[in-house]
């Protein structure tokens, strides 16, 4: 399989990680990316997305509280 590990880069990694968070991923090509090269990209991205997720939920909470505290 002639893959180009550097191609796709940031956006593609992000896309894969987001798909993972939802638990939906398709298409073999993307999987092969994952399988062969540089797991660190995905792990770091996964951690970053997890942090973003936490921040988003916190913002959501804050927003809900601001609505509630009439």
């Amino acid at each position, binding site marked *: 399989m002639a893959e180009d590990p550097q191609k796709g880069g940031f956006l593609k990694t992000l896309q894969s990680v987001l798909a993972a968070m*939802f638990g939906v991923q*398709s*298409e073999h090509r993307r999987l092969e990316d994952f399988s062969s090269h540089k797991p660190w990209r995905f792990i770091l991205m996964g951690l970053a997305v997890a942090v973003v997720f936490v921040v988003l939920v916190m913002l959501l909470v804050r927003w809900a*509280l601001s609505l*509630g505290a009439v």
Partner: protein
Amino acid sequence: MTKRIWLLPWIGFLVSLPAAAAWQVNLSPGHTAIARDIHDLHMIIFWVCVAIGVVVFGVMFWSILHHRKSKGAEAHHFHENTVVEILWTLIPFGILIAMAVPATATLIRMYDSTEADLDVQITGYQWKWRYQYLGQDIDYFSVLSTPREQINNEEEKGEHYLLEVDNPLVLPAGKKVRFLLTSNDVIHSWWVPSFAVKKDAIPGFVNEAWVIPEEPGIYRGQCTELCGKDHGFMPVVVEVKPQEEFDQWLADAKAAAAEQAASAEQEWTLEQLMQRGEQVYNTSCAACHQASGQGVPGAFPALAGSPITTGDIDAHIDIVLHGKAGTAMQAFGSQLNAVDLAAVITFERNAWGNDTGDSVSPQQIAERNQ
């Protein structure tokens, strides 16, 4: 088709369910606005689950019935479908958001304990509840009143078996009551299902909860956090009275407290103290030290023949008043009044063959308990 036989008892069980309509199988709607909101949330999420279940299990059982090899089914070869996958991710997501909105609104209201008409401090003890009406000088314990004989199957069990107490918490109907929950020893949890109030009582911290009881009546609940041996035996009973009756009760309770204080001044005979002491012992001490005074080896020391109850009287008074740090022995000086303390100590020094003949007076206790 022999294997179907095994389904029979299960089907029999399901069929018998509606027949037993008297059994409570669902959350009760409760008796406050919050409880009804929670019941609604519960029913919505329940039906959502049922709907998803019908679809998912429907497809599954369809496959089980129609795509079996014995019917000549050939396996198809598909193993992904992005559209379907995205759909079945987004739809649950949408349902969750729809659920989260009313849940958040309810939760925010549950947390708003401001503007209360009455503050009651609730303290959990192993294994009883203490109710203090803040600013009202009313302070009493609420202990299980089901007789031991019923628990030990020596008597027929009453209607409110394990859900009855000597002194219920009394609240006025239609007023917002704020509860300040804490604990004296381990974590307890105060729960009245009809009010949808359940809050942990944490030692050293205070949690808040509130209720506006709507209708007079008696509401029952239980401690819902494992708190040791008698966790199953510390019920919560709340009696809601109309405002006038509540005011009357309040006045009576204050008068009774004053009378109690006066009785500490009078002289008590050994016999009187022993009689009263036995009652106090059974509600406050017997849970650990046992009615026989024998304790539970390794956990709670025996009092019969113990050096504490037969030795130095001051040491005995001291341990009852102040407890023993690092053990389950509580400081009863802050829980019982002088008469009860005097009575129970006298009782312990003369029961189960201890026979010291000592008698402790309420005045003696009051002096020591400054």
